[in-house]
């Protein structure tokens, strides 16, 4: 067979280092201070959730009958609730629920919605029509109502909460995925892959899905915040995690009667929710900018 055409004097340059799309994305993300701050907050939260037993000064259900609804003090940094439980400890344990619900519910939505969208977009025609009309029907039902129905059918509890929150987010992912697939499907490299002898499954998994991930990741990040808020809403309504296990939304709900006398009881869980969501949104916005090819430099 033929020999080398080009000379081989120059070996290795700045291009030949491992530089994937993700590496570039991270480099661009690092320039965005807001997104980095958000990322740090999320990481801290994750660590808090993982090491809750070690960080929390008290157990989440440990009661101190001498300290009922006491404002913040040196002993109880964020005060105590109506059963004499330490609010800080409960917030720390509550971060577990919130993060789990946020990420797992979104994963459910991403997997199911992504799959529905990919199939609808790739095969088109009747399958597309059928799947997307089902999604439209679901979109027509108010999400809160749907979530309430699902969690009351499945019964309260952490896992069912995740499923309920996840299901309500499916159509958004399906539509986004379908749109991305449609734009990628007709590019020449897909035809090239087919001409190479790749099967439909291989084309979808190796060529189409990875090329559609960018908008989905952004949507997922922002949706985690939504899911946490949603879970908090459901817990506020009593459909989420059951007491005595703490959940931020549930804590807010429990604090409502004491809004006038002990405002801190609702302020701190509210703050926790707010900080988490702002941080997640910052990361999501940052990712969206970093993944935007028009900003490539």
């Amino acid at each position, binding site marked *: 067979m*033929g020999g080398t055409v080009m000379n081989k004097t120059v070996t290795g340059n700045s291009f030949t280092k491992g530089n994937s799309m993700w590496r570039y994305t991270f480099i661009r993300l690092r320039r965005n201070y807001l997104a980095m701050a958000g990322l740090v907050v999320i990481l801290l939260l994750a660590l808090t959730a993982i090491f809750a037993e070690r960080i929390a000064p008290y157990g989440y259900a440990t009661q101190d009958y001498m300290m009922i609804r006491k404002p913040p003090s040196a002993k109880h940094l964020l005060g105590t609730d109506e059963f004499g439980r330490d609010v800080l400890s409960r917030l720390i344990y509550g971060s577990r629920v919130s993060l789990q619900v946020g990420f797992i519910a979104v994963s459910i939505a991403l997997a199911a919605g992504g799959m529905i969208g990919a199939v609808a977009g790739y095969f088109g025609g009747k399958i597309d029509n059928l799947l997307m009309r089902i999604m439209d029907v679901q979109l027509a039902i108010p999400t809160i109502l749907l979530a309430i129905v699902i969690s009351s059918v499945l019964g309260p509890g952490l896992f069912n909460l995740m499923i309920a929150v996840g299901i309500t987010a499916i159509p958004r992912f399906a539509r986004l995925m379908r749109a991305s697939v449609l734009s990628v499907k007709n590019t020449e490299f897909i035809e090239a892959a087919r001409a190479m002898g790749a099967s439909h499954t291989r084309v979808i998994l190796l060529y189409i899905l990875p090329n559609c991930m960018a908008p989905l990741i952004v949507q997922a990040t922002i949706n985690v915040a939504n899911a946490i808020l949603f879970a908090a809403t459901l817990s506020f309504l009593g459909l989420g995690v059951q007491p005595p296990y703490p959940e931020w939304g549930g804590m807010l709900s429990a604090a409502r009667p004491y809004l006038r006398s002990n405002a801190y009881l609702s302020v701190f869980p509210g703050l926790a929710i707010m900080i988490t969501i702002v941080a997640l949104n910052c990361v999501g916005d940052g990712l969206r900018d970093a993944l935007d090819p028009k900003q490539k430099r």
Partner: protein
Amino acid sequence: MNDAQPLLDIRNLFVRFHTDTGVVHAVNGLNLSLRKGKSLGFVGETGAGKTTTALAALQLIQSPPGEMTGEILFQGRDVMKMTEPEKRAFRGGKIAMIFQDPMTSLNPIMTVEEQIMEMVELHSAVANTRERAREMLTLVGIRPERGKDYPHQLSGGMRQRVGIAIALACEPDLLIADEPTTALDVTIQAQVIDLIKKLQSSVRTSLLLITHDLGIVAEICDDVAIMYAGRLVETAGLRQLYKKPLHPYTQGLFDAVPRLDTDPGEKLAVIPGLTPDPTNLPEGCSFSPRCPHARHVCHERSCGMKEYEPGHFVDCHFPLDFSSGNRGDGK
């Protein structure tokens, strides 16, 4: 017409697309054969159905809107009757394709090395696919270290070389090059053409070159087929056809090639009119509305392929008479 069995033999191929605006007749009764080891230039205007024919040969016509009839024999087997797994093994393994636009024909999120490896994994038992991919890169003149790069880090010419490397990685029997140089500038065109020519002889593959550049055809092809509105109008050996084009359309194409010796300011020759709307083809010879020599019979029925000299086929009632300069009788 050949003693040996042709590698690719397309018989009476029709491709139609059913769209909202009507039936698009993309390919209409095409007959084409390609001998083993030879290269065939497939020339025609945009929309003549060249790419559609190539995709039909690969069985890549999407089948709710598209519809194919006829026979496509490859090494004596009808590809239309193959099962889906057979077709997959056949695409890439037996027939490989180089695409027109190197900017969009590579997967942007896979390294070029991985893309060559994909092809090798799909069609050969080579154990060290990465090694093979690097070999192919070297073969097309790209330093193997660049294999770790993503397509956007390569220039257009290099990407087209990668496309060639992918296509040839499993040493296919037939290489279809779909306007491989259209998206490249002239100097790179020459490099890519040289490369295809060189590799074609070293890998011993046949070539179907789709183009509208008669210069490129002259450079690498043995035979030429001229396509117009979904059917062939003239096929011949390279020298025969360039020496004496018989079909008025072929003549028109040659006249339209810009020459260095025309006076500045002189207008380029054009073929009047446009290619017919494939949803509504004219009666008779489809070139008749634009043909300067068309007579009554041309508008009524087409002539069908006739051999005017050995190996030189023309579909025209009144082929240009090269010896006397007059039009033939067509009786």
